[in-house]
């Protein structure tokens, strides 16, 4: 009897495998050749050399291709190939969402889809048995790799991104380029976004995140991941802290320490609250909850994974020792409200050159442009502002305007060593952001311009002399435009 069951299982397994054979999966997978040209954030009028990467896309219904968003940042050209053919089709981006690291792209010619098939999306849940990755290697060779599920977790991206990801084993040596992962039924269960060659595993953006993204798209009004920036610390069984906060030792939750002024839930929470449950689902001392599909997940999944912007949320908190319910609605991310702008804006970094002084806004891209060891190389004051004020605009200041460097010229003698200075005021007026500075410099008729920087550094220039010199400075240093505006 036991043998018979085993036999049956093996048959089912074979059936499933054959259903998801690589030839069957090939029409779901296309090659995407992305040419990226990143802005040089330290010389913001120019770009670095273009680079082309070969990533993968998955055919979904409606004549669209699904892939990762990050590899498409600052793209200048997208080309598709399919079914191992050499013919290239140009394409365009329909939507890039860095907050879920997902993008929809499409070829300009609909004939591209002639021999392709949209993939079927898997249902949420841990995949049973081995999964398959199918990719087109260079030379048009179809390759199949085996992957299997290890665990699930919520991944956060700077600065507002959230995805449900799976860690899966792989026998593929070079992965992490948007390769689709199919379950035994040949349905899409995720796309690979990252690889960890040392332990032969990959990070897979889950079908849950993909479904959420596609659902969001359905009504034509894509709103993305809700914006929720509430800084918390896990109580981790700290009975002293619990006693001080007025909750029993058996009660669990998270300590709320800081709330961004434009986060969803900003009016619901106060620093010092203990967050115990979202929509009736309990949050434990590690900040996780028991997910019906994936086991323990970080509680933020309760706010984005199966919810959309506009949805109501009810939270159970303890405030000053008393339990209460608070509710709020999920609001969209508004990157413009950040004091320090996120990376991958796909836009030219803003700059203004005046009197040979290069003014920019402090952005994450500016800091990371120092390279891999940017946290060691960047100025510690700028790093401090980034670490502690990123999502917290100050009164009267939308952005942090910085003096990147000074192009030496007779007019700016004495100031030429200044770099990475934080601009506070111009002629006594708070430097709210770069466009305000640009406007002010363009309209000011005062004899002098007095720039005040954090820490007592002051630059005084005769306005007319500085303006006159600026044109020559731009020419001398080969800069073709006085500003990005």
């Amino acid at each position, binding site marked *: 009897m036991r043998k018979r069951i085993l036999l049956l299982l093996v048959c089912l397994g074979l059936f499933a495998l054959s259903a998801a054979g690589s030839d069957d999966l090939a029409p779901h997978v296309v090659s995407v050749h992305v040419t990226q040209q990143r802005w040089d954030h330290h010389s913001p009028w120019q770009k670095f050399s273009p680079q082309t990467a070969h990533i993968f896309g998955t055919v979904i219904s409606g004549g669209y291709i699904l892939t990762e968003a990050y590899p498409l940042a600052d793209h200048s050209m997208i080309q598709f190939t399919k079914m191992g053919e050499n013919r290239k089709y140009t394409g365009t981006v329909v939507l890039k969402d860095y907050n879920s690291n997902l993008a929809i792209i499409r070829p300009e010619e609909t004939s591209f889809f002639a021999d392709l098939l949209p993939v079927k999306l898997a249902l949420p849940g841990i995949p049973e048995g081995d999964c398959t990755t199918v990719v087109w290697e260079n030379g048009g060779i179809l390759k199949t790799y085996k992957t299997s599920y290890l665990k699930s977790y919520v991944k956060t991206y700077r600065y507002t991104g959230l995805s449900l990801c799976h860690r899966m084993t792989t026998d593929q040596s070079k992965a992490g380029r948007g390769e689709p992962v199919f379950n035994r039924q040949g349905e899409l269960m995720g796309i690979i976004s990252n690889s960890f060659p040392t332990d032969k595993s990959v990070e897979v953006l889950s079908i849950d995140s993909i479904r959420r993204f596609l659902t969001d798209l359905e009504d034509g009004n894509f709103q993305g991941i809700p914006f929720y920036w509430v800084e918390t610390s896990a109580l981790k069984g700290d009975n*002293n802290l619990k*006693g*001080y906060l007025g909750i029993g030792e058996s009660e669990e939750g998270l300590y709320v320490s800081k709330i961004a002024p434009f986060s969803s839930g900003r009016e619901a929470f106060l620093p010092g609250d203990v967050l115990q449950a979202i929509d009736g689902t309990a949050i434990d001392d590690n900040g996780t909850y028991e997910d019906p599909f994936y086991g323990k997940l970080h509680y933020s999944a309760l706010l984005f994974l199966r919810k959309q912007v506009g949805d109501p949320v009810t939270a159970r908190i303890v405030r000053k020792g008393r339990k209460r319910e608070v509710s709020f609605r999920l609001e969209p991310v508004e990157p413009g409200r950040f004091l320090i702008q996120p990376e991958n804006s796909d836009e030219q970094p803003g700059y203004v050159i005046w009197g040979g002084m290069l003014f920019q806004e402090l952005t994450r891209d500016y800091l990371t442009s120092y390279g891999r060891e940017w946290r060691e190389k960047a100025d510690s*004051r700028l790093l*401090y502002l980034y670490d502690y004020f990123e999502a917290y605009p100050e009164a009267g200041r939308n952005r942090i305007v910085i003096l990147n460097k000074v192009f030496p010229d007779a007019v700016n003698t004495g100031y030429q060593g200044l770099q990475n200075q934080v601009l506070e005021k111009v002629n006594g007026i708070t430097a709210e952001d770069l466009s305000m500075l640009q406007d002010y410099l363009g309209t000011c008729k005062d004899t002098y311009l007095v720039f005040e920087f954090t820490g*007592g550094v*002051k630059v005084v220039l005769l306005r007319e002399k500085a303006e006159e010199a600026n044109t020559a400075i731009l020419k001398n240093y080969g800069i073709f435009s006085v500003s990005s505006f």
Partner: protein
Amino acid sequence: MKHLIPLTGLILLFLGCATGDFSRSLEKQTIINRAATVKIISVAQAPNHYRPWEMENYQTFSGSGAILKDGSIITNAHVVADSRYLLVIKENDPRRYEARILFVGHECDLALLKVDDPGFYEGTTHLELAKTVPSLNSVVTTYGFPVGGDRISITKGVVSRIKIDTYVHQWKSAFLLVQTDAAINPGNSGGPVLQNGEIAGIAFQASGEGENIGYMIPTGIIRHFLDDVADGSYDGFPDLGILWSTLDNQSLKSYLNVPDGSGGIYVKTILPGGSAEGHLEAGDAILSVDGVPIADDGSIAFESGRIMFGYLVDQKQVGEAVACEILREGSIISLEFDLYPTELRIRNYYQYETKPRYFIYGGIVFQSLSINYLEMWEEWWNKADPLLLYYFGYNLTDELYPHREEFVVINKVLPDAANLYVTDVSDMVVDTVNGMRINRMEDLEEALKQPINGYIVITLDGGGAPVVLSARDAAASHNRILQSYGIPRDRELN
């Protein structure tokens, strides 16, 4: 620390050109100089900043020194820093003589020693200090005991540059120094650099960049040190207590209405507690110091060239007055005020013979933020905790917690049943304890006595949940923790 110069063609040529009389007098002078130059061996032991209740293993250093008229021996502070045991050796004497430190000035890298055994002085001579700075391109001779060895080493070089630069031993101040083309080796430190039989300077540091760049402390700084200690105590060098920038931008000069033909410097920041507080203001231009006009780049006329105006301040003893002519809101004002050293909230210079300040309660090790603390990180200047680095780098200029007299850091938590849930706290700056601001280490004692509802509550800079201990458990744990971690004292607040 000075490098041996091999007998090069240049020096041989020089000797070859000398007359017989000259070479005999040179020989005599060499004998005198040798008899006034000694080798110094110091056994030094520095505190352990990671476990501030402990000392590091001892290390033995050697340097050189010169005997002065009163029998004291002048050498570098870095030769005798943190010394526990000090020996002086004469070149042709097999005995070793115990010495003691009379005075040490770490910022000027000078120390004065004394050998109590009168037998030591048999056969020694002494050296006088030259009255002036040696001129550029003049020949100087270095005496000392480089890279070990009990035989004296004599090398020649020329004065290749005179400038104001950092004295790296304490990394606190920049003073006048004289560069010679003799490269410098460990062991030369503290030895005399002679010209015409007088001390032209004390060899003390070398450049890591370039070749044959060695430095000596000129006699002006040595005299300042000797005059300072004449009253029996070392007070150090005063400073203006300001941060300044140059006035070499013509727009800035015309904005400030600096008179035609006049130069000066621009005062950016007045350091709290510094000499200039209450006298100078940010935004002032200092036009002259003690009647000496300052140029737009901050320099003054010096010898046949120019040097930074700080030279004038470095001539002063603590408590002496300085006269400044300043420009404030278009008017020229004459000011006079007394000069003192500026105490810093976060010491950015090295300390010696000083135990780290610490305080332990409930297993939490509180310490004071300083360069010595940051040095616990390898390549600390970019690898140390970023918040600590920011405080370190910008506490003088940015308005950071003006009420704090020092920054109190939790170095680590010594695990115990009383602090089980906070053992991962490290390198965090303390804001409050039990609701009271911690502006200095001494505040901890009072604040810890007033728990909130039976809990010790510590908030940290940068947010996050507070560190909470049960006041009863913490009190009960105190002796147990000290005992189990082998800590003889729970605090060092000197």
